């Protein structure tokens, strides 16, 4: 019989207290995992235009910090960027907020993204197109809408659905699933049609997507653009991504609300675990005294309690993980595509084990003070 099995038997024996500790861990883990999963999803949405476009460099107005807040730049900048050494290709992008109305449905704001045909660089990821082909956007009035838009418009959105964008006729010719933005849903169309719907001039665009020549250094090309083209700022994709996320998080209070909830989940978990383990140790004080009297070292007893704390953490974490998967599956149908990153899951596990072990010190301190002679006091 190993100390591990003894610890397991202590846990199994005191079912009510064990359920209490496990529940504390489960609730803490679930809340932390859920919040971080949603935050990760929101961060993905914040940077969705960047992730969808798959360009190496983004060029936008020089004041731009957030891809969701792109100012208008002149088409001359596109020609200037194309002339920079190391630039293999550069594509224009129009991004504007528009109002869409579906027949017999609701009116909602959308983010309308105009991409250049016939290559459609900057368009929706091909693996997320569930109906139609991207080339269909060349048809008259064609747009690409998302499956989950039906939640917003309250009518099914599918290929063939007719709508009005800023009062002008449009028809869904391509459908994606899960291509969504932070504020509004994304709808794609050709760049010319996007300008038409948004009342922009033929010289207006909002961003330039750049890919560099093979072997060219991306940083150098970025520096060259910034040094050569006045009034714009070039970003490496990952730099604009992190700038966007930090700008949105810093201006919306998402970080503080998520952080507050996580901190309270940790504090609540810590005290539920700590006090329940302490109470359990009080219940078993005679057993620990007996162990000391018959010769168990303080180290043995410390290990016995810490193993229980780690076992509680592992059991609670596994149950919370199952619950998180249930939550993920449950909300997927609403378009909330939560994903739990492996490094986040590992991080939560480490945190939960740590707070369980620290919380166990309440019990350890109490048991450390038990004298072996206490067994003779009835």
């Amino acid at each position, binding site marked *: 019989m190993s100390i591990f099995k003894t610890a397991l038997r202590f846990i199994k024996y005191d079912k009510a207290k064990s359920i209490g500790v496990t529940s504390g861990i489960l609730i803490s883990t679930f809340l932390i995992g859920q919040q971080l999963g949603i935050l990760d999803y929101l961060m993905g949405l914040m940077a969705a235009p960047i992730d969808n476009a798959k360009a190496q460099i983004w060029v936008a107005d020089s004041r731009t910090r957030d891809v969701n807040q792109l100012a208008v730049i002149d088409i001359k900048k596109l020609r200037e960027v194309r002339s920079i050494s190391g630039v293999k290709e550069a594509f224009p992008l129009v991004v504007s907020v528009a109002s869409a109305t579906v027949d017999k449905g609701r009116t909602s704001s959308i983010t309308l993204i105009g991409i250049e045909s016939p290559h459609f660089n900057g368009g929706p990821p091909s693996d997320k197109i569930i109906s139609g082909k991207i080339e269909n956007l060349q048809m008259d009035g064609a747009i690409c809408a998302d499956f989950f838009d039906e939640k917003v418009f309250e009518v099914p959105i599918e290929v063939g659905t007719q709508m009005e964008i800023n009062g002008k006729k449009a028809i869904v010719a391509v459908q994606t699933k899960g291509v969504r933005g932070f504020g509004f849903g994304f709808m794609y169309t050709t760049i010319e049609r996007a300008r038409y719907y948004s009342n922009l001039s033929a010289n207006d665009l909002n961003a330039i997507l750049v890919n560099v020549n093979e072997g060219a250094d991306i940083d150098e090309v970025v520096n060259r653009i910034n040094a050569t083209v006045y009034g714009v700022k070039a970003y490496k994709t990952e730099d604009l991504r992190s700038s966007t996320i930090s700008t949105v998080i810093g201006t919306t209070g998402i970080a503080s609300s998520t952080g507050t909830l996580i901190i309270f989940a940790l504090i609540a978990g810590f005290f539920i675990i700590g006090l329940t383990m302490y109470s359990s140790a009080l219940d078993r004080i005679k057993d620990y005294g007996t162990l000391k009297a018959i*010769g168990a070292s303080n180290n043995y007893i410390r290990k016995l309690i810490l193993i229980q704390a780690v076992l509680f953490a592992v059991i609670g974490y596994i149950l919370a993980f199952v619950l998180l998967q249930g939550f993920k599956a449950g909300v997927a149908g609403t378009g909330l595509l939560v994903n739990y990153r492996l490094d986040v899951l590992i991080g939560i596990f480490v945190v939960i084990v740590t707070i369980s072990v620290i919380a166990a010190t309440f019990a350890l301190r109490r048991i450390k003070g038990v004298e072996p002679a206490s067994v003779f006091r009835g």
Partner: protein
Amino acid sequence: MKEIAKVSNVSKVYKTGDTTISALNPSSVSFYAGELVLIIGPSGSGKTTLLSILGCVTYPTAGEVYINGTEVSSLPESQLGKIRLENIGFVFQGYNLIAPLNALQNVMLPLELMNVPAKEAKEKAIQALKKVTMEDRMKNLPRALSGGQQQRVAIARALVSNPSLILCDEPTAALDPSSVAIVMGELKSLVSADKCVVIVTHDMRLRPYADRIVYVDNGNVLTEEPKSEYAH
């Protein structure tokens, strides 16, 4: 006879604020292999204090304690634990079986603490349980056993590591008469050429089992029966 344990001029004084209570006055007494010794005295006389000092769970205020020839009263608690584990078996008034562990696991516990391999520990524990005729209840948790049965499991736990000194604190106090006979029969059977059993009690029914009686009265250890009503 081999001397198993000895207390030499030991005393115990408890201090609570300004109050000083002398639980045990300077006393000396030896315990030898092959004898069952009763320590008899009224409540509060100091007999449990003497047992605690002898069992190395309480430090004496003064004097020395020898277990198998080793002076132990100056050892730190970490080493005393090892002395207890290897030399002393305990049987308590309230049985003190570990509640979450079944009878077999309780008896295996001292061996686990001594790092005896699990298979060997299990075999020895089963043998110990057979000795107290509790092998058919080895899978039961303590709460499923009667008081007498729990005390027999406690005796098995005390003897499984083959200690030379077995200390019993009122082992029959909570037992009915038939269980008293069984438990005392088993304790008597443990006495051997290299083992000594010491029983603290105020149960006069146990006198016939004793090879020797040590009396404790008002914190004094006596070899002669004091002339008090309690002695009878």
